[in-house]
């Protein structure tokens, strides 16, 4: 036999002990007449009792309860100390501390790099030094390569000087 569909919600509320006291007399009257609802109610109650009875009833032993309580209190104490320390940090709100730390790191980094820039010579200057040294080297190489020519030119210059002085006749008169 099936329960009445109209009384389904009332039946479930009754089984769960949630039926309003005003609705109870009418419901009990209905149960007296309706075999289907009565059977359904019995089955549901048996189901809940079975489920409840089959599960263990958990509980902390005295030792476990004491250990748990002392552990919670100890951890709370540690947390409260930490919170006090954080709150007392120059009166700055906690959420601003990471931002302040980041800003300080940036300032230090910029300061460091700018100081470093003042101490070291500029790269342009060193480049010009290198260029002048290279030019000297190129000149020296030119001199070495044209050394023979220069020696010849030196000989010619001496010859011209001798001729100009008139020590040597330019030509001999044929007999």
């Amino acid at each position, binding site marked *: 036999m099936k329960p009445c569909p109209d009384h389904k919600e009332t039946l*479930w509320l009754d089984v*769960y002990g*949630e039926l309003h006291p005003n609705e109870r007399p009418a419901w009990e009257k209905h149960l007296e007449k309706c075999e289907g609802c009565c059977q359904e109610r019995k*089955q*549901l109650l*048996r*189901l*809940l009792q*079975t*489920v*409840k*009875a*089959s*599960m*263990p*009833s*958990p*509980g*902390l032993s005295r030792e*476990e*309860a004491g250990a*748990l*309580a002392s*552990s*919670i*209190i100890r*951890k*709370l104490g540690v*947390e*409260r100390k930490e919170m006090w320390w954080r709150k007392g940090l120059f009166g700055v709100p906690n959420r601003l501390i990471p931002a302040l730390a980041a800003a300080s790191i940036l300032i230090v980094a910029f300061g460091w790099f700018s100081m470093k820039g003042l101490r070291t010579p500029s790269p342009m200057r060193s480049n010009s030094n290198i260029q002048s040294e290279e030019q000297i080297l190129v000149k020296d190489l030119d001199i070495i390569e044209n050394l023979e020519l220069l020696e010849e030119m030196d000989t010619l210059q001496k010859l011209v000087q001798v001729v100009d002085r008139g020590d040597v006749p330019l030509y001999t008169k044929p007999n």
Partner: protein
Amino acid sequence: MTIREVNSKGKDSPISLKDEELVARARENDQWATEEFISRYQQKAYAIAYYLCSGDSEEAQDLTQEAFLKAFRNIKKFRGNSSFYTWFYRIVVNTCLDGRRRRRRRERIFSLWKPGQREEEPSQEVFEEQPDMGEDNNPMAVLSGKQLTREVRKALMFLPERQRVAFQLKVFQGMSIREIAHVMGSAEGTVKSHLFRATHSLRTVLKDWVVR
């Protein structure tokens, strides 16, 4: 009206205090209030955690502790819109559900690393072995009781999370639908629906046991 006791230090003993007064004292980091709050609620909180952790007592203790710490950290945020214990039980339930999800994620990751062990290891979603039901020495009855317990546990574990929570708070903790609605942050109608569906599923699974 609350009857107050005066202790040796000349202060009101928190034992006689109402929840609201206890909360007010705990907000001021009163050591007595904190201890009283813990001793007043730890059994109940543990019982809720125990069922939500599928009977793992160690995990239930860890999560109970975590819930208390969360409650004390946030006690200043309690505005008194609902009763204090429903506010606290809500923290307990949410802590347990989060803890279970974390654990499941961790297990999933480890099972990916060790695929060979996946099938060999028994599921962690099992209630710890409990003493036999009742004082009955009849071996058949004991066997039957154990089997029923296993069936009930299995049936509960297969319920969707919210249905299971609603059912456990109602049947094992004896909370009213209104209280469950506060704890779960749902409407009363939703809680009723969860309860009905859960009962229907359990009835189908445990049909043979109930009809006997």
